[in-house]
């Protein structure tokens, strides 16, 4: 598994050279876009990291986790994933802030940390995408789009726990 990334990168550079691409300039150009992305998300991220940090410091987040944990544990589901699952379709930055909270509390290589990582890596900000694409096309009646999209998000959370349980422990 650890060989995938190096192989991919080497193959990519080789392919670019064969295709006659100036790969160094391309990389620099892309890195510039990366910086622009970080700059673009920074204010939102700071706002939400502060909000989540505040929630954590007050102890309210632990309280919510304690409230839902009996139900969650009854079905073998990590309680910390509940707030993240609720926020994920609405706000990408908010979910990232909660994700870092989980990393801080339990560590990125813990079971919860891995589940939360898989959720973050396999879902999108559903409401944003639905609004943007239908807005751009001038569609008002979206029929069952939101239902199916949220069902997919819910599936992702359940399946993340299952796959991490299978493959990582």
């Amino acid at each position, binding site marked *: 598994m650890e060989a995938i990334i190096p192989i991919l990168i080497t193959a990519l550079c080789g392919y670019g050279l064969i295709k006659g*691409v100036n790969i160094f300039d391309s990389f620099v150009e*892309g890195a510039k876009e990366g910086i622009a992305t970080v700059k673009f998300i920074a204010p939102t991220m700071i706002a939400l990291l502060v909000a989540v940090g505040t929630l954590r410091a007050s102890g309210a987040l632990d309280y919510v986790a304690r409230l839902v944990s009996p139900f969650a544990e009854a079905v073998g589901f990590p309680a910390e994933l509940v707030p993240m699952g609720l926020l994920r379709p609405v706000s990408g930055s908010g979910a990232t802030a909660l994700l870092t909270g989980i990393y801080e509390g339990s560590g990125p290589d813990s079971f919860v940390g891995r589940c939360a*990582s*898989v959720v973050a*890596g396999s879902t999108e900000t559903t409401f944003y995408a639905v609004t943007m*694409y*239908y807005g751009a096309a001038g569609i008002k009646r979206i029929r069952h789009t939101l239902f199916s999209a949220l069902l997919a998000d819910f599936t992702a959370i359940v399946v993340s726990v299952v796959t*991490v349980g299978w493959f990582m422990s």
Partner: protein
Amino acid sequence: MSYVFAAMIAASFLYSLCCGTLGELSTGMMDSAGSAVELLLSISGMLCMWSGFMRIAKDSGLIEKLSRLCAPLLRRLFPDVGEESEAFRYISMNFSANLLGLGNAATPLGISAMRELKKNSPGDAATDSMVNFVLMNTASIQLIPTTVAALRKSYGSQQPFDILLCVWLTSVTALTAGLISSALCRRWQRWRRSSRYSSRRCAATG
């Protein structure tokens, strides 16, 4: 979003007021602002590295190549969109750009795809193809979850990419669940429409 933000701040204030943890709250608030910037700085290196490599992929024409590879699969999801049409070209390019994690390239392609799909259908209701296309974009089909890996690395993960297999399985399952539920909804809507039509006809003749 303002309400979510306000609710988070208000909930923490009220909760710590009840528990008498206002001191921790004020230091926690300051600390998290500082660590937010630290976090952003520490992930920005890895994010730039990946956007650099993915830019090489884009400049080598990998989007076009991937979209040709994906065409047979996508044809089944969009049976009413002709394979030679502009709409299909945009759909497959958007799909490939998403696979490579090129969000900046995928979004404009996706918007063009939606506008092309709109040309074929007057009215303000989403067509079946539009629903499937938006579902493809609300599910994450990125091959390499770079942001998550960067975050895990900055929190001291030993192997930031060890979740790769789980991420792939999870996204494929989630997207499949979304598409299947969409197909079922479609069938149900058609069934309801036809049963209403036939009952009206019965009433008219009887």
